[in-house]
């Protein structure tokens, strides 16, 4: 059970309050109809799935309800930082 800092509640909260929502910074094409099938498949399905730092989305569903992003090391499961949705990936 991870402990995750919600940037909106400004507190560390236990994993059961959250819902994981997949990789972060996957941009939905502005005009999907202009994408090729391959590009659309990239958007829908293809993921970095890195062994190392991943940027991922969480929603504090049993809390403030907000989606936000986290940087997490997928080897140690350590969370390096969390930040609001819409903000770029921190260095």
């Amino acid at each position, binding site marked *: *059970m991870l*402990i995750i800092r919600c940037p909106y509640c400004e507190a560390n909260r236990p994993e059961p309050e959250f*819902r994981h929502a997949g990789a972060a910074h996957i941009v939905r094409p502005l005009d*999907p109809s202009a994408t090729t099938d391959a590009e*659309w498949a990239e958007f829908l399905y293809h993921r970095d799935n890195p062994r190392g730092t991943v940027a991922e989305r969480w*929603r504090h569903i049993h809390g403030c309800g*907000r*989606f936000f992003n986290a940087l997490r090391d997928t080897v140690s*499961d350590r969370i390096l930082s969390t930040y609001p949705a*819409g903000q770029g990936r921190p260095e």
Partner: protein
Amino acid sequence: MIGASRQEGMMQRLLVGRMFQGRLVPDSMRTEAGGRIDRARDLRFRFDGVDYLGCEGDTLASALLANGIHLVGRSFKYHRPRGILSAGAEEPNALVTLRRDGGRTTPNLRATQIELYEGLEATSQNRWPSLSTDFGALASLAAPLLPAGFFYKTMLGPRGWKLWHRLFEPLLRRGAGLGHAPTQPDPDRYARYHDHCDVLIVGAGPAGLAAALAAGREGQRVILCDEQAEPGGTLLTEIRALVDGIPAREFLARSLAELSAMPNVRVMPRTTAFGLYPHNHAGLAERVTDHLAAPGQDLPRERLWQIRAARVVLATGAIERPLLFPNNDRPGVMLAGAARDYLLRYGVKVGNHVVIATACDSAYLTALDLAAAGVEVKVVLDLRSSAEGPLPEAVRKAGIPILTGGRVLGTHLRRLRLDSVLLGRADGRTRWFDCDALLVSNGHTPTAHLAAHARAPMHWNDTWGAFLPGSIEGVASIGACAGATTLAEALAQGAALFAAVPPPVEAELPIAPAPGTLQGAETGCVFVDLQNDVTAQDIRMAVGEGFRSVEHVKRYTAGGLGTDQGKTGNMALFALTAAASGLAPAQVGTTTFRPPYTPVTFGTLAGPARGDLFDPVRTTPLHDKAVAEAAVFEDVGPWKRARYFPRKGETMHEAVAREVAATRATAGMFDASTLGKIEVMGPDAAEFLNRLYVNALTGLKPGSCRYAVMLSEAGFVMDDGIVARLAENHFHVTTTTGGAARVLHHMEDYRQTEWPDLRVWLTSTTEHWAVIALQGPKAREILIPLCEADISALPHMAVRDLTIAGAPARLMRVSFTGELGFEVNVPARHAPPLWDALRARLAAIGGTLYGTEAMHVMRAEKGYIIIGQETDGTVTPGDLGLPEGRAKPDFVGKRSLTRPDMLLPDRRQLVGLLTENPAVMLEEGAQLVTEASPPPGTPALGHVTSAYHSPALGRSIALALLAGGRTRLGQRLFVAGPRGGIAVTVAPPVFLDPEGARLHG
């Protein structure tokens, strides 16, 4: 301790002894005094049908030893007789089954950890018919044929005979397991709690105590847990040292008193930290009642504590290792430290004439203390080439001979108990020593389990002959488990963590753990894993066969797989693996440590989650009404929904036929409260919904509703419902019962992360509104008089807020039955009275209540889909014949609808099916083919999604997903079945009133 009560105890003991016809002299091995047991409180217990006496404070193991019993179990594979090796959690041999009443039977418990209580009843395991006469021991005779992994090489039989499964596996399975699982459900309760602290300290030995005192005095929130009944660890047997100027055991008592007076510190005995999980989340199992003869009514048997600690301090000590020598597994062979524990904690002499063999200094303490208690210590054999220093000197001074550089060469058994040992001296001479116990030590392995769970690095340490845990963020190891060798060091490390000054230690005999010289005997039965009967030869053989990684050796030999997880044996397994492959132990490493540290009861982990607490049951505000009408319920997700309302003697089929017929003839009433409801508000609400649903919603007029379909971004139908526009900026959206949470989450996802610029907000109103569906030609007639507004002209797909039967209601004219119908939303509290009012009017005109089953039939007659029945996550709106939103520029899922596969003509499309024989009902899930008797492997054209008897048509109907279905209308196909195909004709999916005359009536 000795006094009047002691005398009483002895009197009683004598009485009992006579009662058992003098079969055993009670407590014959109990010392006259000493130990931490309550000698005044005799406890009667039974082992393998024989009654014995022990004392309050005993473990089952100490009580058996006090009665001179060493033989307590049989090993897994060869059924070798086994005794008690240790005094704690590491015990591999002494496993028993405890019986209480009824379902309270527990197998595989370690006698060394079972606290004695009055009436305790234990039986030995894995033997038949008895411990002393065990036919399973015949396996020993075949031992040469049963080396590690023998079954991989044989037991196959001729090809095609399947002899493994038919013959050999059943044979092998007879030997499986140790104890028997209970046959009755467990009547006990289990509890679970979460907790948080600044510092979790595992292990209440000197290191843990020092840390707790320091952290506690600093005001930190501290939890200190110890698996044992009495905290103290090695302090419990520390009889020589002065700590802070007072005897160590007094220091312990004083420390515990101080800790218990601190409100910020909690000391939890009988509590095992069994696992350390990511982010300093620790699992603790507390034994609450197992030590009680009569557990109270309310107390749970065990509690699971899930602790989140800012800092975890591991002070778990070290586990002594046995020596390797031929027949090192005999009852009577015991760890030297355990013998000392039995003496000093339980007042038990493990033998009268003992031999000690050690590769480590600490066993000298055992020699000294046993000798002082009157035990004859015949000799101390030190495997090291010399024995110098204060401890050996003290032993010599006590008149005990020491042999250095020697080896243990064998043991002899008489009446299933060790009676002599063969020692070899450095000069090659050998000699048998008569003895009733052989006490061994091969150094200690730091208890690094929890550190390893947390993925702390492990460093090889030559002095210990073991791996020591390094530290990682938030997790510190201190004391013996981190390599401390003295009491002073252990205390100092504990204090140092919190920058405190440790208490001074005086007059301590130094204890230096021995290096891990593991005597690798070449021949004979040298047991490395006592429980699973893994021998040194098995390990050499495994390595020889190419199993070079310790992980391979473990899996090939089963070494370390037992209930003790190799606590005493694993280091030897690693070292022997290393030796056999010509590597250093550091190169070979360890196998992976995994939770739990010691086994944890399933019930403890499952906690109170049983029955209705297993998963919440959700009921609607009208549930009691349905119960009163004798409804039969079905589970739909977490909800209980009324499936049908049988009248006396009716089958489901009859009830459903009646409900459908009455609804279509007059009117029916249905509890639709489980539907998900979401209030969508804000200036951009229409735009938002328009982007989420396939259907065009921006143009929807206030006061109107529209059926709408929601897709996943992959283009598959995810949910459907009614979108009702109440006002320009205000929508009421319904979802399927099962989809409510999913849809809201999906909407929030897009609202927050894709279109944060839209001014729109979502609020779930699922539970606020109860929904009564009123359907049928007379629905309006029933409703009108209750409405405080004129609804007679309300058209199909209109919505109004108005007062109905005094309740603020949201009325929608919608239909899932194909009839003129309404769904009345009222705040939950108003639902029961409204139900009553409608029920009365309904009864008067011959209407009916109907349940989900009739609802399904009626919607199928109309060709309306059910999410999860006509859809399965692979179905597009086009497949269902629903609008595909082609005119809209974009909506969620639209782009996916133009992927090549989505445009194929052979996609499975929704159709109706009519059996040639109208009486024949199809089975849902049945497969569609072109031939009556297709050969196996024939691809299916589709499958039946729904099948019912249609009262309206007076025949069976079905919906199906069929490849290119809409081009096959009128075709004759077959539904494959075990008794041949059933002929069907493909029809449009709408069976009733395709023009919607009834709907708009």
